[in-house]
């Protein structure tokens, strides 16, 4: 098993594009190392992207924020600017595993692990984040909701890596939130996740919203119907019932050891509503 830690994007892309066997990108390693130990994957090449400066930075860009794919959850939490503008995204990243896992886990890894239950992904999708990719064919942008195709399946070409995420500029009176359901208080994989981002007008009416659900379908979903259910409202009782219904309608979950279809569907509705209410409070307070 080969290990490489290139210091440039070009180097990483060349290594991955040139690999003859299975090649894996190592960011935080919190999923990859577990899969290697369990013999789920046995890569021939591991490319550690943490020495590439672009993957390790958080920078302001055009009024928004660009987050490197290999920035850890703990680093995001400590970033004062980011936490203020995108509390939902930062909270979601900090729900991945333990404090120890936070010291390693990254947004890029969380997305590219290809799990529909990834905690940070619904929050990124709700935020309208765009992934910046680098590959043998050059750079391109892809909305986060389009990166994952299904469990362990990504829309990345051979040799292509996620370099960073761009969170768009934030209009005034905006707020976001992410909630997930787990049986314990920590350490579990999300049984259901719900991310909501919304913007109010001066009168407190929702004028824009994005709603995303995790662990209720083969990939993390952007649910435009759930957003439409609350746009134009002040999230009154009727709007709350509408977002619940829209969330419920979007669910296509499986029965597994972590939850039944019925449970996931019911809880998705509850979390979508609760996340929307938190986002609303944050938008009002901002």
């Amino acid at each position: 098993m080969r290990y490489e830690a290139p210091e440039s994007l070009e180097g990483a892309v060349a290594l991955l594009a040139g690999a003859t066997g299975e090649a894996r990108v190592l960011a935080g390693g919190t999923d990859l190392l577990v899969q290697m130990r369990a013999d789920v994957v046995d890569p021939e090449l591991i490319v550690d992207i943490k020495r590439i400066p672009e993957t390790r930075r958080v920078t302001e860009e055009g009024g928004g924020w660009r987050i490197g794919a290999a920035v850890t959850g703990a680093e995001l939490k400590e970033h004062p600017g980011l936490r203020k503008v995108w509390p939902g995204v930062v909270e979601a990243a900090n729900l991945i595993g333990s404090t120890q896992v936070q010291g390693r886990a990254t947004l890029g890894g969380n997305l590219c692990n290809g799990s529909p239950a990834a905690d940070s992904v619904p929050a990124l999708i709700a935020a309208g984040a765009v992934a910046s990719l680098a590959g043998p064919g050059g750079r391109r942008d892809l909305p986060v909701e389009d990166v994952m195709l299904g469990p362990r399946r990504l829309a990345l070409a051979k040799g292509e890596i996620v370099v960073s995420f761009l969170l768009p500029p934030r209009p005034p009176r905006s707020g976001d939130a992410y909630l997930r359901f787990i049986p314990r208080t920590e350490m579990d994989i999300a049984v259901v996740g719900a991310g909501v981002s919304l913007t109010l007008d001066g009168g407190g009416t929702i004028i824009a919203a994005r709603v995303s659900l995790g662990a209720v379908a083969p990939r993390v979903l952007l649910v435009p119907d759930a957003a439409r259910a609350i746009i134009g409202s002040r999230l009154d009782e009727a709007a709350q019932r509408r977002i619940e219904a829209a969330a419920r309608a979007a669910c296509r979950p499986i029965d597994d050891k972590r939850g039944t279809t019925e449970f996931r569907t019911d809880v998705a509705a509850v979390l979508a509503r609760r996340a929307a209410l938190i986002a609303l409070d944050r938008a009002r307070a901002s």
Partner: protein
Amino acid sequence: MAKHHIQAKVNGDDVEFLCETEETLLDVLRDTLNLTGSKEGCASGDCGACSVMLDGRLVCACLVLGCEVGGRQIETIEGMATGASLHPLQQRFLEAAALQCGICTPGFLVASRALLEKNPSPTETEVRYWLAGNLCRCTGYDKIVTAVLDTAATMRKG
């Protein structure tokens, strides 16, 4: 392929070792450097018994590759006591019976120290959530959480 030749600092000492790509930092610490104070309870980042500091950041040594740590600083339980004296957390854990079997204790101590360095006045809830990645099956956590809170109070007094 040949083994990786790695140079790093462990508890302030320069170390050099050879490792295979698939060997974790925990494998290296325990099997190569004979630092067996970090324990393997799960090898999947779920129990925290292998908690160490990597460049000042709390991590599970089982989730780091040995070949990743070249040029970096690692602190383990073996480096927690300085000279002849135990760290206040170690001392308080002893006095408060905050350990029963003791297998999880190194991980709890390393993680608790990381917490108090970051937050000298944690609430009970903050202690519990910070330590949620450290499993203990013996104590029910009560005496551990109490020991951390008491140590924080003592350290604040200086």
